[in-house]
């Protein structure tokens, strides 16, 4: 069973427990179900008429996962709280789809441990696709979780080597970039490069240049995207 399905099952079990213990009345459950079903029926209509991107079921469960990350001590902003858009205004090609038209949203650990071609969609809506010389953008991202002392120039290295933490950090930078706060933005054709000042240490500068300077701390994250597709991201000192 996928992690999202497990979360839904846990939610249902919790609701049943509350009903059994008398803490939640059946009529409130019915009202909740009606509201949820109504929302998902109206979501496409509202999106079309209002021109906004409302969260769907996948987004809701992804946000739950992000909350789990925070509970375990990682730092991340919440797309629902800060009101930032989860998609870029410069969207290019949509992610590849499976035969039934549903985007293939892969599991983080599966992609990193195997040669999976699946797309990974982050809680903020960024897509990590097949590509780069590492074979998958997630693998390329995680190449910035360790120093490469012989790599020419600067090699930004994240303090954390935990993939979920690194993905959450990129999400945080992306969402901050959408607001424009402490962000420098450059565009070339379909590519956008954000330098986001996260105002706390997120890593250091390695590579030949960084190691010559005793690995200085980095508070900025450089994020290169094409629409909502991640090309690369790493700590930087602009």
């Amino acid at each position, binding site marked *: 069973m996928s992690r999202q399905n497990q979360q839904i099952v846990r939610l249902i079990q919790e609701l049943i427990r509350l009903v059994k213990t008398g803490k939640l009345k059946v009529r409130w459950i019915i009202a909740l179900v009606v509201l949820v079903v109504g929302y998902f029926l109206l979501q496409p209509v509202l999106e079309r008429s209002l021109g906004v991107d409302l969260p769907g079921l996948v987004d809701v469960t992804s946000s739950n996962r992000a909350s789990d990350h925070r509970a375990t001590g990682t730092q991340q902003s919440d797309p629902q709280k800060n009101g930032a858009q989860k998609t870029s205004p410069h969207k290019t090609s949509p992610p590849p789809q499976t035969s039934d038209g549903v985007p293939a949203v892969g599991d983080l650990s599966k992609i990193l441990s195997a040669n999976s071609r699946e797309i990974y969609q982050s809680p903020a809506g960024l897509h990590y696709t097949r590509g*780069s*010389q590492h074979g998958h953008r997630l693998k390329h991202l995680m*190449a910035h979780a360790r120093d490469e002392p*012989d*790599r*020419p120039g600067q090699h*930004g290295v994240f303090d954390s080597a935990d993939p979920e933490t690194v993905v959450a950090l990129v999400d945080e930078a992306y969402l901050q970039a959408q607001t424009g706060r402490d962000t420098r933005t450059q565009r*070339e054709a379909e590519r956008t*490069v954000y330098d986001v000042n996260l105002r706390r240490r997120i890593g250091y500068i390695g590579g030949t240049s960084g190691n010559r300077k005793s690995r200085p701390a980095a508070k900025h994250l450089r994020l290169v995207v094409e629409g909502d597709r991640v090309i690369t991201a790493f700590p930087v000192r602009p």
Partner: protein
Amino acid sequence: MSANKQMYYVGFCRICGTGPLGLRECGRCESVVVLCDECDAVWTDADFSARPQFANEGELPCPHCEASLIKKPSRWATKGKINDVAWVQAAFQKGTLELKQGAALTPEIDDNED
């Protein structure tokens, strides 16, 4: 440093700001292009002010023959190969490019890998 991570590079990428610009030899047409080792931007000559070619979804085709620049037999160009490339040598003589050697971020990918 493993041998298959060595590359010759000619500067740093103006798009991502930090990626070394390696000289990459296409395994099919044997042309040499400039490939950013960080963001996969590709230039066909020393004019880096020109718009680079960016990777397609999941693939990095050679601008000349569209073979994969990622998978073998494509590889980082050897010194011998670089010496045979007219546009590279012309840029060296003009002083617009300087050849250096360093470690690439990624090892070469075998054909059977995705």
